[in-house]
């Protein structure tokens, strides 16, 4: 990380990517509050493959694949079997933290030696292609919801699932697809984090970014394009911490910079939540 702007962009990218997936899932009417767990699973998969193959591209794919699996499994419990998605998500936080720590312990015992990952090569603004992709994805999603029938149907699953069912379409299938997508990009976000930000895996490496991504979606009031400024605000706040840590001297304690992103996120959702925008059937089981 070089300049402050590059650092802010790089730290916002995983947040934005994960938030894009969560937005799609929530617009479809389900939600994954255990996104932190998904990101950890993706981060670990990327770490494991990155160490073995020395190919950051393969690592990124592995992260996305692990997230995809996580999203599909989440859909089995929270969409198809209709268990309360929030409680399932709470268990997912444990599952992702425990599962990734379990794998890491086994792997660390097996390899030893360097655990430094090769980063994805930067192409512009200090961002790798996947990082740029994170900033393009909201535009794609905007077009998807605005101009395509599929986007309309997906939104309908979150607003009036009975109407979708009356059309003869399966709400379960659509929400499951959304969950798979959310999982894949959430996993890729975890991968991007370990590949280009932390450069290695440690237990709990995501440090709450999955939770912050949930707040970004609420702050953006479920609008794809608004995700960008929302993620930049929260990501920029985390970048401050890295910058001042690197500078070595700061008049404020290190913990203040740890507290800044969740504080900002809390203030942001407090200001935006009462203005509405949540899908009407958010969290309601499929008919």
């Amino acid at each position, binding site marked *: 990380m070089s300049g402050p702007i590059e650092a802010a962009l790089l730290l916002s990218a995983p947040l934005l990517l994960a938030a894009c997936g969560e937005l799609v899932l929530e617009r479809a009417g389900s939600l994954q509050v255990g996104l932190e767990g998904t990101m950890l699973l993706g981060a670990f998969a990327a770490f494991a493959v990155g160490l073995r193959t020395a190919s950051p591209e393969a690592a990124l794919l592995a992260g996305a694949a692990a997230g995809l699996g996580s999203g599909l499994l989440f859909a089995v419990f929270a969409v198809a079997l209709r268990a309360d998605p929030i409680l399932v998500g709470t268990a997912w936080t444990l599952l992702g933290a425990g599962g990734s720590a379990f794998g890491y312990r086994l792997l660390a015992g097996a390899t030893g030696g360097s655990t430094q990952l090769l980063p994805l090569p930067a192409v512009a603004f200090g961002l790798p292609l996947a990082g740029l992709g994170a900033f393009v994805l909201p535009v794609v999603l905007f077009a998807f919801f605005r101009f395509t029938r599929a986007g309309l149907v997906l939104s309908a699953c979150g607003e009036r699932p009975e109407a979708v069912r009356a059309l003869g379409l399966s709400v379960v299938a659509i929400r499951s697809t959304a969950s798979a997508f959310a999982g894949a990009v959430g996993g890729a976000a975890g991968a991007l984090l370990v590949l280009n930000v932390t450069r290695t895996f440690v237990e709990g490496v995501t440090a709450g970014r999955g939770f912050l991504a949930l707040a970004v979606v609420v702050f953006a009031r479920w609008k794809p394009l608004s995700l960008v400024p929302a993620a930049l605000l929260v990501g920029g706040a985390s970048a401050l911490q890295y910058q001042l840590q690197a500078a070595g001297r700061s008049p404020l304690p290190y913990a203040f910079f740890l507290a800044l992103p969740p504080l900002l996120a809390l203030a942001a*959702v407090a200001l935006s939540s009462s203005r509405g925008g949540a899908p009407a059937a958010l969290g309601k089981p499929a008919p």
Partner: protein
Amino acid sequence: MSGARRGSRLAIPAVAGLGALAAATAAIALLALAAGAEPGAALLDLLRGSVLTRGALGETLARATPLLFCALGAVVALRAGFLNVGLEGQFLAGAAAAAAVGPVAGLPPLAAAFAATIAAAAAGALWVLPASWLAERRRVPEVLSTILLNLLAGSLVTWLVRGPLRDPSGDYPQTTPLPDAVLLSPLVSGWRVTVALPAALVLVATLTLLLYRTRAGLVLRAAGESPRALRAAGWPDAAVRVAAAAASGALAGLAGGLEVLGSTGRLYDPFSGGIGYLGIAAALLGATNPLGAATASLALAALGAGAGALQRNSGVPASLAQVVPAVAVLVLLSLLAFGRRAERPA
């Protein structure tokens, strides 16, 4: 109401509970296999490390105590319809308060321990209140705000152990140990079990009576099950939810404070490895009632203690004790939801 219908009401939770137990056992076996250990031997290791020896039993009970307080906190909140995912942060706030108040000069040891305990409960309750306010006044889902408050509590602990409360004589970022006189003494020599455990058990009985045998308990459960009916009956449902959230936070805060006073003697960073989330799992596995939550807390504490032994003896990572409860919760919730749908006339 037919007998068969009433029978199925009991049968579904029973089947779901057995299913969760089976899933947990299968998860243990699979994780052991993944780590290159023999599943049968791993199960035996788990038992040995949790209940079969005197030391192991003490470890299980020591781990069960804070978990039980957290699980009771989850029960109170869930029953009132407040999804408190912030037990982790409230636990940390309580631990921080106990570490800060415990060493206050001038107080006799017993008074200092008492003050630290009260401060821990108060800090836990205070840590949940922003979420209550945001939920009732700004329509922010408490799931989101309590999670964010967890992150904030983590940074509070980071600040305290590196800043104002740092032990100047040590190399690590941790607080100065509390004086021995302030710490709760072990009830049984060699065990980290203090008066906190019997206190937790008394709480289980009290909460059971309170929830199911008093008007206050009825009102609390109504706030969760049918807030509209409660409001129609003239009760302020929002006030009930806020009170339940504060009680829930106080219980988690107590868990943190008693952990400092009875077990660790100091605060360090990170102080919790997800006990708040585990407490929610224990509450759910215990059918969201105090006695069930107590049973599940004991079982999860045994799993945690056993997993420590398993890691030492067979190299199976101890985070098994996080994965297995998660799997059990997922299977339980799914089976219960499936049962509810199957029971409902189509």
